[in-house]
């Protein structure tokens, strides 16, 4: 479980995070969504203990990142947005070095390294220097490193960014497995639709503040189709058949059918038959991104 508690952080005069609090439960995949510069990476760096917050704390399975960093770090894996390594070292050697921090012997680390390199699709590049790795390869390497001790919590910062389709597929499988294994997973993205397929919940951050936390269910319901029909006069009674097209709502001389499904022309025909004149017909489709912007907009 990852628990972010009242975290604030400023960089000089820029307030990057203000009182950020949320939780990622075990067995839960949580998306962390916000625009560029919203504060996602800052939050994640604080979660993994590499950046110190100005106030607040993060608890990984109950261990404070500030006070019990070793125990907290032991329980969380991290794939950074832009992984940076010491450039002149060979990949597998660096893996072995990092594994040393988990008290894994060099020979064991070498064996584990080869296995994980294989798993993340890096086999055959073990002896290349890290500076010769592409961005995607660096992400895969960071992923391999995060798997060293199979921790119960993970944070992935824009992990799909820079991965090829094969990599994206691999990551999706991995995340689903983590969920099955009861791990807590937080992954950030600035595209809501990217988290759609995976997330159970989404935490929205905007300008350093958490503006909403919604389940995927709630988001999807916001991202509905609406049929709006303006009539010449107020609708007296909603025709029975309309109910099969969605949830009708009447407002003066406007009929709105939320969660609209079906053919709009049949609805128009139906109303015409009832003797109404149709002034305007509009099919509104709200995408996930629009929901996202709407959420942000509400916040402005």
């Amino acid at each position, binding site marked *: 479980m990852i628990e972010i508690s009242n975290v604030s952080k400023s960089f000089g005069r820029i307030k990057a995070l203000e009182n950020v609090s949320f939780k990622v439960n075990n067995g839960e995949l949580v998306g962390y969504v916000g625009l560029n510069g919203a504060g996602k990476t800052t939050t994640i760096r604080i979660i993994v203990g590499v*950046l110190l917050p100005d106030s607040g704390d993060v608890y990984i399975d109950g261990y404070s990142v500030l006070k019990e960093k070793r125990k907290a770090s032991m329980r969380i894996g991290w794939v950074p947005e832009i992984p940076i390594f010491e450039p002149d070292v060979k990949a597998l050697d660096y893996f072995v070095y990092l594994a040393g921090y*988990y*008290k894994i012997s060099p020979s064991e680390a070498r064996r584990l390294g080869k296995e994980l390199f294989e798993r993340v699709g890096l086999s055959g590049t073990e002896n290349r220097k890290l500076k010769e790795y592409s961005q995607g390869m660096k992400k895969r390497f960071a992923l391999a490193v995060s798997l060293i001790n199979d921790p119960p919590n993970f944070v992935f910062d824009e992990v799909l960014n820079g991965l090829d389709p094969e990599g994206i597929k691999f990551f999706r499988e991995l995340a689903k497995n983590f969920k099955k294994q009861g791990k807590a997973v937080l992954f950030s993205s600035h595209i809501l639709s990217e988290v759609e397929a995976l997330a159970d919940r989404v935490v929205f951050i905007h300008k350093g503040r958490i503006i909403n936390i919604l389940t995927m269910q709630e988001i999807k319901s916001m991202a509905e189709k609406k049929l709006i029909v303006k009539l010449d006069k107020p609708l007296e009674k909603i025709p029975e058949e309309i109910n099969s097209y969605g949830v009708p709502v009447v407002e003066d001389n406007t009929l709105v059918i939320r969660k609209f499904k079906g053919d709009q022309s049949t609805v128009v025909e139906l109303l015409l038959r009832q003797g109404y004149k149709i002034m305007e017909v509009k099919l509104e489709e709200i995408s996930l991104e629009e929901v996202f912007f709407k959420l942000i907009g509400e916040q402005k």
Partner: protein
Amino acid sequence: MSAVIYDFKRSFFRLSTLLLLIIFILVGVASTYLIYSSMIQQGYSLDQKLSVIAAIDTEDNCLIIKGYVFDEKGDPVSFAQVELYINDKLIDKASSADGFFMLCTGTKISPTNINKFFENITKLAQDSKLVVTYRDVREEVRSSTIMFREVKEIPLTIGFPRIYYLKRTLYTYHSPTAFISTSSPILIPRIDKDDVAIVYFINPFFSLGNNSIEAEYCIGNYLSLYTEKNITKACEEIKDLGVLNKTIVSVKIPLDPKYNGLAILIKKDDLNTTYITGYSTSRGINTIYLSLLSTPLGTIVNFAPIIMLYLAYVLMAKPRSIGALEFILARPITRLDLYLTRYFAAVLTGLTLSIAVILGLGLSTTAILGITPDMTALLTIILGLFLALTAIYSVYYSLATSIRSGLYLAIGIILYLIFTIFWQTIVIIYAYITGQLFDFQKLTELISYSYYFNPVGAVNLLLTMLQKSYGLSSVEVNPYYVGLSVAIWIIVPFILGYLRFRRINLST
């Protein structure tokens, strides 16, 4: 711990470190050759390993020679062939047993014919030599005559000028000044543990009548003992050696490593004479070696900080600047752990380098000069080099935690130049400004003391202490100040660096 080892390996087994290490070892070997050739140039003979002390005495109305031979370890040599030549004519030969030998000059004396006796002795003094052969070593020892220091006129009834043969080699325990003057018939072939010396000296009185003497000794500064008219003023404390009556007297005297001069005061009736020799509690060759060592050591000390500048760059400045430390910090470690790991990785490299460099120097010394350098001296130098490297690393490391890598290199190089290449120039400019430039003693002290204020000063300070203990330097360096200086140079930047590192944002 394993991370320290890994970072250490990474710092040590990198081309630049190994290259510098090899260069330093080569500097060590080359320096040893330089030391060797300058020893030869200054007339020191490394092949002369046997030391000899012998004196003419009388027995059965015959002039005889009694003496001792020692090897380079100071052990008495048995089966050494000793020949006496007068005017290149072999007169007598003998083989030593337990170091002792006795030769007959073939010259009869009659105590009644003093003039004839005196004539014989003078002739011997001029024309005789001893040739000592042992294994493949052959030594020629010419004779000298004892100079009585405080006795202007010696009544023949009491004594004659004593002819003696003395060969002090680089392997005996005399300070280098004593190699130049052979006027004192004192030989210190060996010093046991606890600095107790086996001292041989020649009784100035023949066994003709009664040759028993009362002897005392004192130790002090060699130069003071030599120049002070009233020797007791230059003495630490005069101690009794008792009544002695051998031709060549051997006594045990505890030598104080603090001093470098030994005076033996001999009394017989109203006659007083004093022998003075310079000593060192290390073999002469070690002393010379140490005095010549400061040049190559200076070279190493001048260049070694570059390694530390570079290591702090590789281990801290660069990865911190590019943001690579974050990924490491995400491991189950604290910032302090990370800070310590990369600190001690380089410190360990510094230690390995110090040991390797000095060991290289030591081994080439053994190979080229054929001597085992004084272990205490070597360990002191290793310690000095190690402390200096650690201190300069502390300075660089703390810089590396706070400034970006380009600026780090610029400042690092400037500091390097100040603390090594330009240091003496700076001190000399300071001396000029404060008007101490033309007082040689003051200037020497100023340069020595200036190293308290230099992170790489530990080597120079410890070397000065060593040289002082060998009588090679007159500058007194306070070991507590050395400790304090080293501790401050190591700890203060280390802590300042950590205070900065503790909070710093490690991303780019």
